[in-house]
């Protein structure tokens, strides 16, 4: 057990898997000697040599295509896309190739690979270093999409992703690399060392994909969220003083529909929170699932708290970022129906 931030936990997951399995290769832009612009791969080249952890050309499509070819050979590549905002040049390879390889060849060729990529805002990165494109990938059959909210999960989920026999998109909310950000940007940053989930085993462990976690049990309403927004939601709940159940989805596809159903059927109310733009974001699918499965239990309209339907603008970081105030408002709105303020 060590105290780790999310960068260290991810690094530890990669290290653990490279150590266990010589077929795990790690590569991407600036990933090798330098160890990645966020340092997630620091030390791996030194430890495992340049053929196990290396830099690539700046060609996201090429990185993913290369990973696909390696995976078809039998390796387990872990490719980094430096920012999720730069994943689009690889979109075709992900959507048309990795996602369909098993299907179109009826299992003759598969794509056991992980694409890691830092996502989300909160760092004044402007519109090209802040995006949350996860929703797009959940529309594509054949892909799995994962987003951890803390170091413990990050390591366990990344290991499970590397061991998974299907292609996994692994999005890392960069805002919480160093600490559990609750959206109060004007308060001192909390480090992971003070958070229970900053306690991370040094050795191998897995967190099964497709399983959500109730990070706060409650009875009055359900908050469905993931990534950075877990902390924002928890903070908003605390500040509102309501008895909300907060569910950290962790895996978006396949989604843990049981956990969602159980909770919403219990609470009858639901708020969905994500950082990505609203229209056709993953929140829409969550809302659809809840209304399809819990319709007769719902006591109020489900609310979405999301990024606005605009690019992420540099100067308006905190007006864009769906912080605790907006989550609180939604909580109140969903509850007010019965007079609870």
């Amino acid at each position, binding site marked *: 057990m060590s105290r780790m931030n999310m960068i260290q936990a991810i690094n530890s997951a990669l290290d653990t898997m490279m150590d266990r399995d010589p077929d795990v*290769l790690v590569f991407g832009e600036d990933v090798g000697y330098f160890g990645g612009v966020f340092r997630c791969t620091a030390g791996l080249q030194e430890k495992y040599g340049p*053929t196990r952890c290396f830099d*690539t*050309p700046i*060609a996201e*499509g*090429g990185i993913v*295509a*290369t*990973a*696909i*070819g*390696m*995976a*078809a*050979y*039998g*390796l387990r*590549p872990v490719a980094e896309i430096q920012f999720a905002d730069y994943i689009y*040049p690889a979109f*075709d*390879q992900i959507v*048309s*190739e990795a996602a369909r*390889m*098993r*299907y*179109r*060849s*009826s*299992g*003759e*060729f*598969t794509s056991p690979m992980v694409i890691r990529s830092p996502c989300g805002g909160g760092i004044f990165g402007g519109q090209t270093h802040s995006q949350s494109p996860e929703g797009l990938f959940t529309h594509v*059959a*054949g892909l*799995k999409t994962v987003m951890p909210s803390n170091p413990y999960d990050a390591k366990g989920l990344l290991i499970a992703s590397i061991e*998974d*026999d*299907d292609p996994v998109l692994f999005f890392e909310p960069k805002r919480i690399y160093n600490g559990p950000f609750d959206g109060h940007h004007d308060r001192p940053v909390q480090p992971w060392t003070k958070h229970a989930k900053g306690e991370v085993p040094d050795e191998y462990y897995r967190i099964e994909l*497709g399983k959500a976690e109730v990070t706060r049990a409650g009875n009055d309403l359900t908050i469905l969220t993931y990534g950075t927004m877990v902390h924002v939601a928890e903070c908003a709940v605390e500040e509102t003083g309501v008895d909300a159940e907060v569910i950290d989805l962790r895996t978006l*596809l*396949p*989604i843990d*529909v049981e956990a969602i159903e159980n909770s919403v059927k219990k609470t009858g109310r639901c708020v969905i929170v994500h950082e990505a733009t609203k229209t056709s974001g993953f929140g829409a699918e969550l809302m659809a699932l809840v209304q399809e499965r819990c319709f007769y239990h719902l006591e109020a309209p489900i609310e979405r708290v999301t990024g606005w339907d605009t690019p992420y603008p540099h100067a308006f970081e905190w007006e864009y970022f769906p912080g605790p105030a907006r989550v609180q408002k939604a909580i109140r709105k969903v509850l007010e129906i019965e007079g609870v303020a």
Partner: protein
Amino acid sequence: MKAKPLSLHIPEPKARPGDTPDFSDLEIPSAGTVSRPAVDTSAKAMHDYAYDLVRVLDDDGNAVGDWDPKLDPDILRQGLRAMMLTRAYDDRMYRVQRQGKTSFYLKCTGEEAIACSQAIALQDRDMMFPSYRQQGLLIARGWSLVDMMNQVYSNTKDRLKGRQLPIMYSSKECGFFTISGNLGTQFCQAVGWAMASAYKGDTAIAASWVGDGTTAEADFHSGMTFASVYQAPVILNVVNNQWAISSYQGFAGGEQTTFASRAVGYGLPGLRVDGNDFLAVYAVTKWAEERARNNLGPTLIEHFTYRADAHSTSDDPSAYRPKEESERWPLGDPIERLKDHLIGLGQWSEEQHDELAKELKEQVKQAGKEAEANGTLGQGPQLSAKYMFEDVYKEMPWHLREQRQELGV
């Protein structure tokens, strides 16, 4: 001084329907004039090969020059047979599509030498990442025609379970990578596969094929870049058959230079070869294979050929090119040329040829019967639709299980 107004250049092929096709401006060097460099020659010393044209068979069917691979007549006959079988297969499958037994078919008429000789030149464990026009690879390796037809029919014995468009074969056993309908995507995947082989200290190399038109895709550039940077053991082939559906190769850059010359900018050797010359293709492929196998890096090969027939069953080339163009193609027909060579060697005869043609036609016919017994698209026995939901993931997630139940399969 006021500058003159600019104007926009739009490439235009020499001949359109109604015009008389004219290939007289094509520079076609005589066979045997191009020397064969050592396999460890530096890329930079090889620029001329990107503009020249390696040819072994001369107009009289003799094998001449440095590049003559001096193949055993048995191998030549094996190649001839593979090309003829490919053509016979194409002919039948084209007809069955026309008869409504499947939705789509695509021939490689005129281009048989490329896939057939390369399949023979490569080794069994090498992985081939083809485009849709390399059915010759499977056939030359003796892969089951019935199995191929089952795929074309999406029938009950289709190993791909009816999921893929006809001709999008996959055969790991045969070293034939699952074909994608998306042009070019496999080019850099082949490089990744080759890198994996090199990483593992394996001895298998990879090869990939794209058409002239496809060289414009992003993945072509990715493939070239990654191959160059990591010096991957891979053979990258451009099959320049002059046409991309209705667009002539000028729309891919062929008006300005050769496709082989793309190699120059990545520091790779690029060779241009007479794609209708079985021996030349074999020889150049062997050169590239030896280079890759000895860890000397990748090679780009441009196969100069002509798509003698329609793009596919969805296409009618008479709408955009002169009907006679394919007959005027100055590099001839690959089957005729190898046949003439073998006859010249005293290793083949017109009679044997006719007999073989008949035999192969019969072989294809028999295979067709066998395959059709397993059903054709929408006729006869059909696959269960439950296969639609399998293999999306290794394990079926709840939502697909629910959807399968909803469909009731």
